[in-house]
């Protein structure tokens, strides 16, 4: 254990030193904490607004927490995926003479930290918003942070280290939990549909005695009820059952033999997690972990294009091998957002009589939302062959991103045509909106390349995105402003063509600048 403590301690200290040396990490950290506090404060205000600022309000929160979070964790542990190990663990820890149970206990330190932060937040909320007596807050903090964590750790160790449990049984457990959660959610939805969504109805729902009778999670809810509301026959019995369960689990896990069989899944998860982090770093939109290997369609086709054009035809071949061609999760997001907007804003758009401008607003919003999405072109810049192709940088830029422009055009059609028809927008305005969407997306690509060129890896992906947004908004904002002024004072029909022409001009200029990035692999920064 001494070695594991050393490992954790040194990693923590070195990471802290690195963060202090790298201001961008510190800024992100401070921003993250501030954002977290803002969200919690907003939730607190919301609780006051909807009259949930009482002990019963806290009980509603704890009941939901107990059911969804605890069962969710159990499900992750049963597939041996709840603890984050790194490839370094596979190399240096799993092979070392350290008790596999200790490896597990140490590996879960992040879970303990999250648990402590969460229960401190609950306690502060209990004292300030939910008006719970301090001694009760102390008790429920102990129950949540200590008892719940002990039970969770015991269940975790049991599920990870028990090689005698057949995989089929574990699959059954996971399936049963999923069925229970879906069933429970349906029950909650039906209940509130019948009784109306109010604090009173929620309060009545959590008073339902069956909830406390549910094994483990229900008994946990009973402990919180005992502390916060005082004893009843039911909550005392269920609390006793909870304590007994906890003691039995701890004793069982203590005595259980474990020779590290779980290292196989943990090592696989460590690799998958490392891959996920890399994917996230490179801006990949598909952030699923592990899973089956991607399958590709068989396409027999030769790339006959020459020079930079070959980049486009190679990408086309790659997309042809994909299951859904150029359509991806990003397309689904586009469809979903288009669907939501077309329904929710229909009345307002029709009433205003300026449906075209409403559609333009959605196009602008979608350009912003889809800004995190990257296609295959991003990887082109990491490929040295791109720079070796004997062609001009402008052509390389054009052909490396051409597929993205086509995709943007298709996405634009998916978003604009249904909304346009549904809102009765003029056909020429729909066409303008589609074209503007495609041009805005192209502008985003080129500005991103320029931002990368300007700041390199110094400020990381976040820094690059901030710079990109700043450049993009400054340039396009000017055009939008000018178009609106001309629209108001001269002719509203001019807004669309002016905006399109201006966006094309800016995008071409950006493209010319961005092509410099395709000249040499080595960058300025």
């Amino acid at each position, binding site marked *: 254990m001494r070695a594991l403590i*050393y*490992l954790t301690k040194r990693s923590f200290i*070195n990471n802290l030193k690195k963060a202090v040396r790298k201001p961008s990490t510190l800024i992100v950290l401070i921003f993250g904490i501030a954002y977290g506090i803002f969200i919690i404060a907003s939730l607190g205000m919301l609780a006051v607004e909807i009259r949930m600022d009482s002990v019963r309000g806290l009980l509603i929160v704890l009941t939901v927490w107990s059911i969804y979070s605890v069962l969710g964790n159990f499900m992750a542990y049963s597939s041996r995926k709840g603890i984050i190990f790194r490839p370094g663990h596979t190399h*240096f820890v799993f092979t*070392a*003479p350290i008790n596999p149970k200790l490896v597990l206990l140490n590996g879960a330190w992040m879970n303990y930290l999250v648990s402590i932060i969460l229960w401190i937040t609950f306690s502060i909320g209990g004292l300030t918003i939910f008006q719970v007596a301090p001694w009760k807050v102390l008790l429920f903090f102990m129950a949540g942070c200590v008892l719940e964590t002990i039970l969770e750790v015991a269940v975790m160790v049991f599920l990870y280290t028990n090689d005698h449990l057949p995989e089929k049984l574990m699959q059954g457990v996971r399936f049963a939990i999923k069925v229970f959660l879906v069933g429970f959610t349906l029950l909650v939805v039906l209940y509130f549909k019948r009784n109306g969504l109010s604090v009173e109805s929620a309060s009545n729902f959590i008073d339902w005695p069956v909830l406390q009778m549910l094994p483990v999670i229900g008994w946990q809810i009973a402990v919180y009820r005992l502390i916060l509301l005082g004893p009843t026959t039911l909550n005392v019995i269920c609390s006793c059952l909870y304590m007994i369960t906890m003691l039995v689990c701890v004793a069982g896990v203590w005595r259980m033999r474990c020779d590290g069989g779980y290292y196989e899944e943990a090592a696989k998860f460590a690799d998958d997690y490392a891959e996920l982090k890399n994917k996230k770093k490179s801006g990949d939109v598909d952030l699923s972990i592990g899973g089956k290997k991607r399958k590709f369609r068989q396409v027999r086709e030769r790339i006959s294009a020459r020079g930079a054009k070959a980049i486009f035809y190679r990408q086309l071949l790659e997309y042809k091998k994909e299951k859904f061609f150029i359509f991806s999760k990003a397309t689904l997001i586009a469809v979903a957002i288009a669907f939501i907007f077309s329904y929710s804003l229909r009345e307002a758009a029709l009433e205003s009589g300026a449906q075209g401008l409403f559609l333009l607003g959605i196009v602008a919003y979608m350009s912003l939302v889809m800004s995190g999405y990257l296609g295959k072109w991003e990887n082109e810049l990491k490929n040295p062959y791109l720079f070796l192709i004997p062609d001009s940088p402008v052509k390389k830029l054009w052909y490396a991103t051409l597929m993205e422009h086509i995709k943007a055009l298709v996405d634009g059609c998916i978003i604009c045509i249904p909304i346009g028809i549904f809102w009765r927008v003029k056909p020429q305005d729909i066409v303008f909106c589609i074209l503007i969407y495609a041009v805005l997306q192209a502008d985003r690509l080129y500005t991103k390349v320029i931002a990368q060129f300007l700041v390199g890896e110094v400020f990381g992906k976040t820094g690059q995105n901030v710079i990109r947004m700043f450049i993009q908004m400054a340039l396009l904002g000017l055009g939008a402003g000018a178009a609106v002024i001309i629209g108001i004072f001269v002719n509203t029909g001019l807004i669309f063509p002016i905006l399109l022409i201006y966006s094309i001009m800016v995008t071409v200029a950006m493209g010319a600048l961005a092509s410099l990035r395709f000249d040499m692999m080595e960058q300025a920064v």
Partner: protein
Amino acid sequence: MLEIQGLSKSYGKNLAVDDVSFTVPDGQIGILLGPNGAGKSTIIKSIAGLLRYKGGIRIQGIPSRQLDAKRIFAYVPEIPSMFDALTVREHIEYVRMAYSSDITDEEVEEILKEFEMDDKQEKLGNELSKGMMQKVSICCALAVKPKVILLDEPMVGLDPAAIKMLKEVVLRLKERGVTVLISTHMLEMVEELWDVMFVMEKGHIIGSYNKADAEGKDLDELFFSMTGGEKS
């Protein structure tokens, strides 16, 4: 001594290793050879305790899963994975603690110097090149002061000086009575090292040779005679 008895491992319905048995005697250097997909990595990972398997693996007579066996066993994986936020020196300190190794500071310095890492002790794991990571991985394995050491493609990514040093180190370990098992494709690199070789194909050991039985034949000659390929 490293003993593998009736080792089998399946991934779902795919049988990767089928009832494999072999032994590397005390103080000898064993070479595990085979084409890609033969099952070498599965055997190596099973010995290192990273996979579930059927059969038995013993290190100096102790079942490999036991902590006593792990204490005298060192492993150099094919792809080294460092802890991003740990320095080179801290990696070695961790190994020293985890294995309760009696290696002294002077010995650590010496190992690092041999692999030209003494001036990079304060570098973090994520600041190292692939070759440097491989060197750190080897240094950490040596810091264990093992009785059995397993090296999976140890020469990949190393510069010529480091390869030369590694060969010297392996021979030194042999002199000290350490049992060594090396899995590699670089036959010419282990030509002067091996005592016993095992050739794998499709999850089975298809043949083995002792140096004495080889009658002076090259490793690649023996390998291709068993796998049916041609010597280049």
